[in-house]
């Protein structure tokens, strides 16, 4: 449903293949890895984190026997996915910057003759050009188009073969990439930018790489040291080259978050859930992208942002089994809190096609199942929702909440959207 990061390992595997190069990196976890060759190596955290070098998440020039120690050091910082690559020694002057971003107007290319960890401070040296949106990859034999001049210029400036540029753009299009950044891009050899073949064809055994077959890793002397790739998650069906398993998990998820993610993957509807503060006062079960933000905003606007325990929403007319599962997971999460007298806000705007009667049926079933636990924690529930079959859904909800002494309020569209959060917060103040 959005832009997501591929692991660097997967991204490089795909890009090297597209460039006709062989990739020598290997993935690693704290449990182990497959040794690719002799080293020395670079060990990096592969969890989509920016500025790894400055955060100390990269270990350079590690010999084979020191790898387990290095892995241990990074694991202790709380990371679980790594990448091991051959160490490519180079001079800082050989570093370049290159990124591509998909926009409505076309592919924005940003490039600089400099690169590396300090690129942020050298922003003024980064050139920005746009390849018009009718960009398609052509082989160089075809007649030139308006984008050719631009790609030609970039290849000359960066001293990379023109073929590299074509293959990179082709890769960008075919893999439905939204954003791609190579930093640094290291260009070591004197190459002919026009024809894309290195001037010296003999195999190079560089003393710096100590035994790594340089030729295999990069025939043209172009090295992709760090690569960040964001793909469009909706394109998995069209590319079939990467799957959701190749997408970076940005943080450690709770079992309930994982359960809801699984529920979402199997559903036609959209269901999301993020735990923000497991000790928060305000728990939300919201529907609709815009309405959920509005209700969450109100907590922030009233100075209760830190009390927001979770964010999430369901939309697209889930069935009652799905809202049941969703609510059960939300309640499980709530029950782990050490606090009592928590507020649960069941909120949403005036739905267009989501059946309120049906979705609330699942929610009420989940409340009924967890009745004892909820009562013990003295939960109060605040409801505001509208849409098809709202009268039925709201009536059932009101009845259940009153009978079980959890009634905060049940309201339809007569109550302004954000007011539901306000009523819950004000009620909690009186409680305290």
């Amino acid at each position, binding site marked *: *449903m959005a832009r997501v990061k591929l692991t660097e390992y997967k991204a490089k595997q795909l890009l090297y293949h597209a460039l006709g190069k062989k990739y020598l990196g290997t993935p690693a976890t704290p449990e182990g890895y497959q040794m690719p060759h002799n080293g020395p190596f670079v060990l990096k955290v592969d969890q989509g984190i920016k500025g790894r070098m400055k955060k100390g998440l990269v270990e350079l020039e590690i010999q084979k026997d020191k790898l387990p120690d290095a892995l241990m050091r990074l694991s202790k910082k709380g990371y679980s996915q790594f990448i091991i690559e051959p160490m490519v020694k180079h001079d800082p002057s050989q570093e370049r910057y290159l990124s591509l971003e998909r926009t409505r107007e076309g592919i924005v290319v940003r490039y600089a003759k400099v690169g590396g960890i300090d690129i942020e401070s050298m922003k003024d040296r980064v050139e920005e050009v746009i390849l018009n949106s009718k960009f398609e990859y052509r082989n160089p034999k075809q007649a030139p188009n308006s984008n050719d001049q631009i790609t030609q210029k970039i290849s000359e400036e960066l001293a990379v073969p023109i073929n590299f540029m074509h293959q990179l753009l082709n890769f960008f299009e075919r893999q439905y990439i939204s954003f791609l950044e190579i930093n640094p891009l290291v260009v070591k050899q004197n190459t002919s930018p026009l024809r894309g073949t290195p001037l010296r064809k003999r195999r190079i055994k560089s003393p710096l790489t100590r035994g790594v077959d340089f030729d295999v890793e990069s025939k043209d002397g172009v090295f992709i040291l760090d690569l960040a790739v964001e793909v*469009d998650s*909706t394109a998995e*069906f069209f590319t079939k080259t990467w799957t959701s398993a190749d997408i970076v998990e940005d943080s450690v998820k709770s079992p309930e978050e994982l359960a809801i993610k699984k529920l979402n993957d199997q559903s036609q509807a959209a269901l999301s859930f993020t735990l923000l503060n497991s000790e928060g006062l305000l728990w939300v079960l919201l529907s609709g*992208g*815009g309405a959920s933000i*509005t209700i969450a905003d109100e907590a922030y606007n009233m100075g209760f942002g830190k009390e927001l325990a979770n964010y999430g929403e369901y939309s697209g007319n889930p069935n009652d089994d799905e809202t049941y599962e969703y609510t059960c997971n939300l309640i499980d999460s709530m029950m782990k809190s050490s606090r009592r007298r928590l507020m649960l806000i069941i909120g949403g705007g005036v739905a267009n096609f989501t059946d309120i009667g049906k979705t609330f049926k699942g929610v009420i079933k989940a409340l009924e199942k967890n009745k004892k636990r909820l009562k013990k924690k003295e939960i109060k529930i605040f409801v505001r929702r509208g849409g*098809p079959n709202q009268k039925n859904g709201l009536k059932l909800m009101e009845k259940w909440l009153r009978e079980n002494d959890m009634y905060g309020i049940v309201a339809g569209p*007569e109550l*302004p959207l954000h007011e539901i959060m306000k009523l819950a917060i004000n009620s909690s103040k009186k409680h305290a």
Partner: protein
Amino acid sequence: MLNIQKIRSKKQSIIALGSHIPILQSILDFDYLAGKEGPSVIAIIASGRKNVRLFWGEKDVLIPVYPTLAHLPASVKNEITLFLNLTSGRRVLSSTVELLDSLPNLLGGALFAENVPEKHSIEIFNKIKPGSRIKSGMTSGQFIVGPASVGLMIPGHLKLGAIAGTDAEQLMDSHVFEPGSVAVFSSSGGMTGELIRLVTTVQKRISFSLSFGGDRFPILTPVEAFLAAEHDPQTKHIVYFGELGGYDEYELVDLIKQKKVTKPIITYIGGTISAMFEKPPQFGHAKAMASRGEETAQAKTKALKSVGVKAAQSFEEFIDFVKKIKIKDNIPLPDGNPHVKRALRLLEGGLKNDLPYEGSTERSEGRDVQKVLSKMQQRTHALFMNSISQDKDGSVEIVGEEMLSMATKRSFGHIVGSMLLGRQLKSKDTAEFIELIMKLLVDHGPYVSGAINTMIAARAGKDLVSSLASGLLTIGPRFGGAINQAAQHWLEGVAESIDPDEYVERSAKQNKRISGIGHRKYRVDTPDPRVNVILTFAKKLNKSPYTLFAKSIEAVTTAKKANLILNVDGAIAAVLLDVLSQKEKISPEELQELINIEFFNALFVLSRSVGFTAHYLDQRRKDEGLFRLSPKEVGFAE
């Protein structure tokens, strides 16, 4: 580009891709309650059925379903001005491109699906960009709302999508039948509904409303919507709910600076909560992730404020701004509405003053509307739909004509033809030809399979209906059922404008007989006299392409073998195709439909029933006893 006044100025006809019953029904309910003469949805592309049954008010109505766009009759293609694409995210690009390439009078449409790749949205965006070439004869410049959009609403005129709700009560509560002057936009479908409700609750009315959808690259951009509002004479005010993520609001700021948008605007940019987190979660919509400072709700609100937009800091302030809109849509507040009463008490006294939830019970539109609504809520679907006959005012009406007057004034040919087509015949010639066929097919001697089976059953002592049925059950591909197949040949041949030699050659290669050609008895030198009579009829027509094609096929086949002549089945099929297309104005697509449902065989079945019945009665009169063959007559194959 979106031009609201242009859409408002004419009746619009919608094609739906895929069938999402609650949404389509809500469009028909909207049309009905808005007082339109008929549904705005005129065609559905879907598989499986020929019609989708929906309600028009309390009654059932059938909306035609076509398997693909290629199956749409030309007249329908030309009539369609808007589309509603309800297919899945995977199919949106291909199906939308097909729509744009095949519908000449398309003004625009809406995409409902979530999960459309951003690359595909951009491709569609570029395809309809003014000035880009779509296909020869097709122009660009359409508007497309979405993906992931609930669509476009023009109160009292158009509902294109789920927008403003899917049940009639919701539509009533949202006052979308009373046009006003406030334009409402949001990425979020839910918030669009919410905002419509908010604006109408504070006694203003909507000029038009749409939802962009929560994707990163909506095809119809906020800029396009704001410009449409600026150019719409009915719109006096704009209400916009934006979200964190993306740069759309900065483009709006530029438009305001350049004085391209001058109408007053009220906004709320949701997502201030995002400032709480070092690493914000992905909010509900794909684009709702602020990766840079300018994309935050706070930054965008500030930028909008700087150019004079009433950009609210909170939703509460936003509601306050909306309440204060000074325009003449003001409609008096209904007294005693329990909704309003409860809301006011809650706001003033908090939870202490709470009343039980009652749901909405009264509306400003008054009692009549309430009555219509409660009728609509109680409606149920009929078990069958038919277009042949009905009881009306105590007597029976057949294809729209009172039965007795029909029996006395109309020919039998007219009655049969009208009933078989499901509508009154337009031409006397058709009636005359059908009567001629009915007479010609009534019997063709006692030696044919169907007559023999009838006689055998009669001699076995079976009753009338059983004997007739055994004769009728004999009708099939080899006996009597060839008219339909022959019609298929002639229809195909003319549609492909294929050379007759080639057609015959092709059939021979496929080892297929051409139905309607060949006779056991008659030859080219001793022709079937019935065929002559039938073909003479074609001379009454200005054009007779099917008959000409059938005869040209005969010319090829008789050159090969003298008995491969055009037979009665082939001649009837050819002339009937010509009569129906010339005199009844039935399109080739509809003729194909008639073949598919065996219309052409129906005439044989009806007429020959007379013959079979006669043979039955005759055998009963003779009463010769059970018929049996001897071993000599049924050989034994080793």
